[in-house]
């Protein structure tokens, strides 16, 4: 059996504003190395909420989260930032690139932050990732000079820069047309099969989900 990358134990989440309501109820799930998992479910069932907890950005929950076998309970904000930097790549529905930097620098930033490689090496790695995504020719453009699909591919390249244990995506194709959505999906597929990259992708697209290794379906804050 391959290594568990993400494992949760009875994760529950409450929102208290405007009234107390439980959004996640005793979530127990895991993702193993190299697995391509999709999360589906009706709007408002708690998919995004779960993903934010799994990505360590949301720390206000009950239950326990293990990333790479290590509990995330009672960690300092700076430790969590380091874990996100090193082990998790995140792709959002809206591409979220920094408009002040060109494509290359956008991809490089998390790598520079990690500081594992020299600036030159990080740059070479960034080109490598851009090549995987087929946009190495756009490297020196500014984000606002790219199409939506290209931006999303830059965001994926950025999520790959530190060779994370897992890539998480919250509807990464949600904002793209069919053609671009397919391109992005095929990239995920390739990362999974060729590079053995673990992926956890929230989607509304059942066709997309059906092509993944495993589907986690949620309803009213529970996994069914």
């Amino acid at each position: 059996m391959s290594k568990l990358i993400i494992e949760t134990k009875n994760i529950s989440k409450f929102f208290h504003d405007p009234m107390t309501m439980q959004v996640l109820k005793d979530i127990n799930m895991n993702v193993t190395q190299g697995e391509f998992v999709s999360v589906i479910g009706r709007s408002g069932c708690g998919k995004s909420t779960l993903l934010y907890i799994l990505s360590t950005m949301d720390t206000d929950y009950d239950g326990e989260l293990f990333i790479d076998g290590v509990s995330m309970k009672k960690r300092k904000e700076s430790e969590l930032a380091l874990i996100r930097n090193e082990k998790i790549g995140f792709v959002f529905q809206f591409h979220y690139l920094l408009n002040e930097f060109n494509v290359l620098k956008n991809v490089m930033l998390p790598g520079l932050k990690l500081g594992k490689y020299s600036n030159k090496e990080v740059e070479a790695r960034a080109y490598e990732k851009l090549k995987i995504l087929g946009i190495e020719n756009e490297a020196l453009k500014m984000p606002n000079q790219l199409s939506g699909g290209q931006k999303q591919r830059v965001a994926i390249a950025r999520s790959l820069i530190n060779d994370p244990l897992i890539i998480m995506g919250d509807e990464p194709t949600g904002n793209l047309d069919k053609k671009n959505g397919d391109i992005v999906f095929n990239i995920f597929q390739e990362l999974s099969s060729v590079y053995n990259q673990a992926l956890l992708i929230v989607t509304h697209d059942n066709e997309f989900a059906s092509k993944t290794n495993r589907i986690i379906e949620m309803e009213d804050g529970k996994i069914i």
Partner: protein
Amino acid sequence: MKFSLLLSISKSLLLARWSQTLVAAIGVTFSIAMFITLLSFMTGLNDLLDGLILNRTPHVRLYNEIQASKVQPIDYYAKYKNHYNFVSSVKPKNERLEIYNNAAIINTLKKDSRVLGIAPKITAQVFYNVGAIDLTGVINGIDVEAENKLFFFSNYVTAGNYIDLKNTPNSIILGKGAAEKMLTNIGDVIQVTTTKGERMQLKVVGYFQSGLQDLDKVQSYASIKTTQKLLGESNSYITDIQVKLNDINIAPATAIEYKNLFNVESIDIKTANSQFETGSFVRSLISYAVGITLLIVAGFGIYNILNMMIYDKMDSIAILKATGFSGRDVNIIFIVIALSIGIFGGTLGLIFGFGFSALIDQIPFNTASLPTIKTYPINYNPKFYIIGAVFSLITTYMAGYFPSRKASKIDPVIIIRGK
């Protein structure tokens, strides 16, 4: 390496909004420049006004005063020791203004390490005879060289050469106002009468202009020798000993010490001119208050711009955090932005401040009462530049502190969810 990354992020954020940041920096530049200019000018003016009095006033002056004795014979009488004695119409006895034994006093003072220099002086009441009219006047008999060394005498001699007073026998340097009244020219001979009726012819070798017009109408200068001759006194006659100390602050204590030691009257510069110090102090206080107010206003400018910047960089901050930058990193990024505005604006401010000061220094400023001053006075004290620099850093840091903290506390989930 990591810090340089944060620095480069700061730089990019800053340059992306360069026109706004420029406005903020100009605010700092303006306030620092004003601060420097204001203080340099105000202090220059203060120094000038103080110099008007302080340069020319001895730190301690020893003299004799004609006054009625404080102790009357009846006070010595044992029988009335415990009574109140009322003596009316007490008159001073015919005492001389001379400081007795002044040679010994001067010798003692010369050995005192606190003393910078000594200039003996005689004040003589005279009448200037102008035709049938007598004008009252005062002749100061001075040791020309000592007077020049300690009290910059030559600065105030506006016509003629001050040293002629020493070299030409029976010469006088007239106050400008007195000379105008008497319609004399340099080289003319005037006649003066002492209070005892002695007359003497004196040759005018120069004019003196102190800046205080009332003084110039009355005062004139002659050498000690000439004055002694005029008064018919011996060559040991001296009425004042002017002492300049190394440290003006010990003047009051020293004055009291000398008074008791030499058994003469004494007055120190601080007691005699306390109003000047108050004036200078208030002027400096006002300049600092205005300067610091300007800086604080500039600080609010920076605060505003950073707040705006953080508001519109919310997405970027969220993304930085989501990709592994910690709150502390974000904090540093914005503090660096604030400080760069401060350093850039502040440095320009110091340069402009110096420029403005130098400009003011060139503006002609001619006034009859200040013969030595040709342009507006400026004090180029580095202290102002240091205060300006430090203060610009402190205000920009403070202005950056709260917005940066706010930025570091931004929750990426809220921003990302908000879209």
